[in-house]
Each structure stands twice: as structure tokens, then as C-alpha cells.
């Protein structure tokens, strides 16, 4: 296990280095720079030149990247060009909200998706199966901003059960999380259904049933446990996808997450902020993968051996 973690950690560092390099270079290849945006409408060329020097944008890109890495190694991701606050602080103020939103959505999608998937597999070809498959198809094709607006109209504007937007009360998270659900539920349900069908056809399931084990214990304890491995992997992927996909939902619900901040930072060319947010995403992606591997190891010890 220790060796496994060391290797994984080394790979994580390499990934982060690579991500930071790509982000760094791509941002600087974009037309327009933060000095022009910050200097505003009345800027003279001298003002813009001064600003470029102030942010170190006048140096060759290799030197800029070197300086950035040197600072990053000490945990300093620089200052936001526009707010002048440390990037770490800006990200830390918003990232937990995004994680909470994506985490809740994935947890609920996991529970509902597995339930639907198992039911569909057990009732293969029957009306329950067909209904679930149709719902799943609609779910996959429902864009979250559209679902979000419908949910607001129904549950906030008409019924008044939940706040329209913001993050003022404990209930604020319900509608944004719910609007992220349909595609995730659909994906998880379909995957669970197909892996369950595979597993239910295995010899050991027949053996267990023949030995007189109850149907439900075979289903939930023997079959589902084996069917879960690809599903858990998928949940990890869904979580990662949601982190990137929450921007529309954050905008509709005025949810103070990191997605909106990322878009704003890109449009104002706030290089350090964009770099910081992308790096944070990369760390979470990598950690999610790590967690998925560990969980799969717990579910099936054979995975650990590899």
C-alpha cells in the first residue's frame, strides 16, 4: 500500500507540473493581456507598459514560468491581478462551495442511479426496465441550465419551497444540486444495469441460488458488490465532469463557486487566478482518481494486487 501511494503521489506531481505548464503557455497565447484590460479605457501606452512590468509580463515566458514554479513550490500561487488578493485565498473562498455542490449531486445520483440500475436489471425487458431506460435517455439529454430554470420556476417561483438563488439558507443547495442530477443518474443507472446483467449471468450467482441463499442477499451482497467496480470508477469520472460542468448552474443560481470565477478570470486575463483554479481542479481530479482506486480495492481485493 505504501509503495502504491508513493508512486501515485509522484504521478500526481508530474501531472500538476504538466497541467501548470500547459495552462501557463496557453493563457499567454490568447490575444489581449491583463495590462490592457486593467488599464481600462483611458490608458496611455506608458501606463500599459508600466503595468506589464509590474506583473512581470515583460520577461521572456520561460523566465516567467521559472519564477512561477519557484513560488509555487513554496505554496505561493501569486496574487490575483485584479483583486490583488492571494490566489490561494480567492480559490479557498469558492472551491468548497463547488465541491459541496458537485459532491452532493454525485452522492444522490449514485444512490438513485444504482437503485434504478438494479431494478432495471432484475426486471430486464419488463415495463419497469423500459421505463427506466426511457427516463435515463431523457436524463442524459437534459441540459442542466434548462433543468435548473424549470426547477426554479416550479419549486421557487410557483411553490415558494426553496430560495430562487444565492447561498443564504441551508436549503439553497437543493435546487442547484437537483439540476445537476439527471445526466449523472442516467449514466450511473445504465452502467449499473448492464454490469448487473453481466454479473447475474455468472456461474457463482447460479451456485449461490442453488445453495439456497435468498434472492435478495444474492442480489445485493454477491452480485451488486461485483457490479459496483466499474460504477465506482464512473462516479469518480462524474464527479470530475460535474466540477467542470457546474459553471452554468452556478450562474443561474448565483452560487458562489469557482466555475463562475474561472470564466470571469479568463475574460479579464487574470493569469494567476486562472492558473490557480485550473491547478486546484487538477489536484481534485487526481485525488478523486486515487480515492476511486482505493475504494475499488476495498470492494474487490483483486484490484489491489495489480
Amino acid at each position, binding site marked *: 500500500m505504501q509503495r502504491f501511494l508513493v508512486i501515485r503521489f509522484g504521478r500526481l506531481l508530474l501531472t500538476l507540473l504538466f497541467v501548470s505548464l500547459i495552462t501557463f503557455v496557453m493563457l499567454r497565447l490568447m490575444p*489581449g493581456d491583463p495590462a490592457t484590460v486593467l488599464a481600462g479605457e*483611458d490608458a496611455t501606452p506608458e501606463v500599459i507598459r508600466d503595468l506589464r512590468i509590474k506583473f512581470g509580463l515583460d520577461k521572456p515566458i520561460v523566465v516567467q514560468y521559472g519564477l512561477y514554479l519557484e513560488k509555487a513550490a513554496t505554496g505561493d500561487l501569486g496574487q490575483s491581478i485584479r483583486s490583488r488578493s492571494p490566489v490561494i485565498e*480567492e480559490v479557498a473562498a469558492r472551491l468548497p462551495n463547488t465541491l459541496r455542490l458537485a459532491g452532493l449531486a454525485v452522492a444522490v445520483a449514485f444512490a438513485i442511479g444504482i437503485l434504478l440500475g438494479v431494478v432495471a436489471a432484475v426486471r430486464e425487458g419488463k415495463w419497469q426496465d423500459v421505463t427506466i431506460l426511457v427516463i435515463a435517455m431523457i436524463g442524459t439529454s437534459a441540459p442542466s441550465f434548462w433543468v435548473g430554470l424549470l426547477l426554479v420556476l416550479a419549486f421557487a417561483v410557483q411553490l415558494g419551497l426553496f430560495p430562487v438563488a444565492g447561498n443564504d439558507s441551508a436549503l439553497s443547495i437543493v435546487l442547484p444540486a437537483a439540476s445537476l442530477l439527471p445526466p449523472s443518474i442516467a449514466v450511473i443507472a445504465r452502467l449499473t444495469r448492464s454490469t448487473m446483467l453481466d454479473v447475474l449471468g455468472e456461474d457463482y450467482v447460479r451456485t449461490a441460488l442453488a445453495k439456497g441463499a435468498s434472492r435478495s442477499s444474492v442480489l445485493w451482497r454477491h452480485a451488486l458488490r461485483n457490479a459496483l467496480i466499474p460504477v465506482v470508477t464512473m462516479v469518480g469520472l462524474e464527479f470530475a465532469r460535474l466540477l467542470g460542468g457546474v459553471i452554468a448552474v452556478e450562474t443561474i443560481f448565483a452560487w458562489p463557486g469557482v466555475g463562475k470565477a474561472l470564466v470571469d478570470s479568463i*475574460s479579464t486575463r487574470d493569469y494567476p487566478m486562472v492558473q490557480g483554479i485550473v491547478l486546484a481542479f487538477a489536484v481534485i481530479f487526481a485525488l478523486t482518481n486515487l480515492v476511486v482506486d482505493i475504494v475499488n480495492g476495498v470492494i474487490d481485493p483483486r484490484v489491489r494486487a495489480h
Partner: protein
Amino acid sequence: MARREWTWTSALALAGFTALIAGAQPASAQNIKVLLTSEFPTLDPSETGGELPMVLYHIYCRLYSFNDKMEAVSDLVASETVSEDQKTWTLKLRPNAKFHDGTPVDAEAIKFNIDRVLAQKGSARILFQPITDVKVLAPDTVALMTKEPYPALRNNLASPNAGLVSPKAVTALGDRFGVQPVSCGPYSFASWTRGTSIQTSRFDGFYGPKAPYAQISFQFVPDVSTRMFLMQRKEADVALRFGPQEAKELQAAKVKVNEINGRTILYQLNYKLAPTNDLRVRQAINYAVDKEAIIKNVLLGSGTPSKSVIASDTFGGRPSGYYEYNPEKAKALLKEAGVTSAKLKLYATQNRYYNDGLVGQAIAGYLRAVGLDTEVILMGDWAGYVDRIGKGDFSLYTLSWGSSTGDPDRIVQALFHSSRAGQTWNFGSFIDKNIDKLIEEGAATVETSKRLAIYGEIQDKLFADAPWLFMYRTTGYMALSDKITTIHTLEGPEFPYLFDLPK
């Protein structure tokens, strides 16, 4: 069975409890929630962008500010004396003014502020630039020196970017000042929840009339439908930036909607490239486009045709004429100019101004109809757009202009002075020595009637030269709840004030 019942009961109790929390938000008439469309990174007064000015007005005090007619009048200044040669302004300050941290707003503080902005690299510097020196004459008296007479100084110092900062706070906070500002306006900064809202509360030590609301919370809600829903549900009190369609829907839902003046939208023409370097072509472009039809059909009525380079909210702004829709005249002018086949490049922003991309497409349609083969390039990314325009390879591009000072000097300087040719915002390289002279005269003329005459001449000359495709001034809409009793909307800026203005 008993266990199941227990589960149900607790679930119901939980649901009831949470509903209670959600419902228990006593919306006091004293606490106002304002919906803005986007967050800004800092509240430093030297920054511009988005709806930042609206928050700045409420937190920052200024030496001068605007009255209801958008004239710059004394605010922190108790009395002013301008010297014989018009180059020294001696300002006596109100005796009782204090910053939110309790330190006095005295002559030293004014000097600190002006020196700070002049040393800064930011967009506010241009407002203070005419000032060459600041002298503290007494604790409550300060003298501002200018190189030339500069009557627009009052207007510049009334701009939201001229807000005064507490020297003590700036020294203590350094770079962090922008996220926890201390000034001397009617509301003081309380807190900022990143991504969510900024809280301000009434400053009891304010030198002016008591502010009408105990607290104002500025909340960031980027989505227009969400802002609409929040107003319908009475979860907010002021919401800005609605289009004509949403205004109708809000009115249908019995929400009060007020009109508010927006920015002037124009298309700058390129004097450096053919065929727009020919006066007849520029005029033809103006005659070729049916502005009224665009306002009616693309803007759904939310605009008025612009008839001068200076809008009517600004000192001296008045109509100079109107290029009515006349495609035959446009074709004749093109023929006269010998333009038979020309390719134009039209750049327009997308989603920066109301229906801007559609307006660009409509204009291109009109231009093609008179024989100008127009390529439309729409760009949603502002930084990229400015970068692209800066390369000078355009025939016409869209830009908007608003008046934050109520004085025409800044507008004509930035858009028409030859020293700006090829740079922001004279990318069209308009160069005219006579106009330069008039601009400089206008800036330095003190007598009102003479100044009016100069700006009148500037407007007429520019209108005739057609440096722009003159388009329209937009009308915006804001929604208000019943709790709003005090609100002032000026003709110029696009934002309301939630406190009483000086007379």
C-alpha cells in the same frame, strides 16, 4: 411498523423545520437587497468596470458630486474660491466630515488622495491629471493647482472614480484596501462574501443627510432570469439590467419597472483604410442603415437614435443632425466616390450590449443592400476584441460610450484627439488639427456660454465628417420593490443612488 412511523414523523418534522428556516427571513423595510449582474475583484475607487460605480457611490464620498440634474455641485467642499487666473482652486472642507474609521477628512487627507492617484497606474489617473500640485493651507483648507484653467475639474472630482480613501486605512491595509475599503460615504463597508454579496450599513457619522436604509446588500446574480424570479418572489428590492422583454414580463407580474438611460452605441469608422477614408463613403454608410427599424425590431424599442457625438446628458450635448434612412442617397454617394465594389470588415461584440451581435448582422444587411460587401466578425471575448481592433484592420467596429462625469472633455479627448490616433479609443485614427484646437480650447475655457459655443462647433463639425456610423442610445430597465422609497436616477450614469443627493 412502529419503527416506520417514527421515521416518517421525524422526516416530516425535519422538513417542517427546514421550511421554517427558509421562511424565517423577516425582510425589514430598512434592509435593502440590490441585484448586480457580476462581481468585481476590488472596491478600489480607481478601478472601473461593470456595476462597480454603483457600489462606489454608496461607500465613497467625494469633493463634489452630482445633483439630480447631473451638475457637479459641492459635496465635501464647503466653499471654493477660484483664483483670478483660474489656475488655483482653494477649497474649504466641511468641518464635521469623518471617514468610517473615525479619522477626519481634512486637507492632509485630500492631498494624500490626489497624490496617491497621480502616482498610480490606473484608469482614475486621467481624472486628476490636470492637477499639477496640491497644497495644504490649513487643516480644513486645501489648494489645487492646474497648469491651464480647467473648468471640468468639478465634474472630474465628482466621478465615482474620484472617491476618497482613508489614508490611515490605506497605510494599514496596503493591497488589501480594495477588499475592505474605508471611506466617508453614506454607507460603510461591512463585509464581502466572495462570489455572493457585499454588505454595507448606514454610516451614522455621515456629514450629509441621514441615509434612508439601515443596510444595503449588493448581491451578484449573473443570470437575467434569476434576477427576474428574485424580483417576482420579492426576495430582492432593486435589480438592474433588464432588457425590454424582461421589463414586459416583470410588469405583467406586477413588479415596478423604471427606465434608466444606458450608453451610446456607435460604430467607429476607419480613416486609415479605403473606402471608409472617403467622407462620401462614411456618409453613405450612415444613410444606408435604418436606425429606427433596428431600434424597433432588434432592440424592441429600447433606444433612441443618436444625433451627436455628445449625448444630451452631458454638458453642451445637443443634436447636430440626423442621417435619415435613405439607401438611394447612399448609393449615389458611393457612385460619386467611385466605389463600385468594396469589401468591409465589421467587428461587433457579442453579449456585451443588448442584442449587439444581432445589431451588427442587421447593419451588415443594410450595407450589403447598397452594394457594400460586408463581412461580420462577432467576438464574445472583450480582451480579444480590443486586441484585434487595436491591429487596425477593420472598416467599422462597435463601441459604447457613457458619461461618468457629465462633462464632454473626456469623451472628445479620448475619441477624437489626434494624440490618441490609432490607440484606445481612437482606433479609427481620426486626425483633424482644427478639432484638436477646439478640444483644447473647450477644456480650458471657463465662461459657460463660450464653452457651449465651442462644444456646439465640435459636435457640428464631427457630425458632418461622419467619424462614426451614428446608432443609438440604449434604454435600460430596472425593477424596484415597494420597499424602495428613496431612489435617484440621473440622466447620465446607468445606476441609481439609494440616498439623497446634494442640491
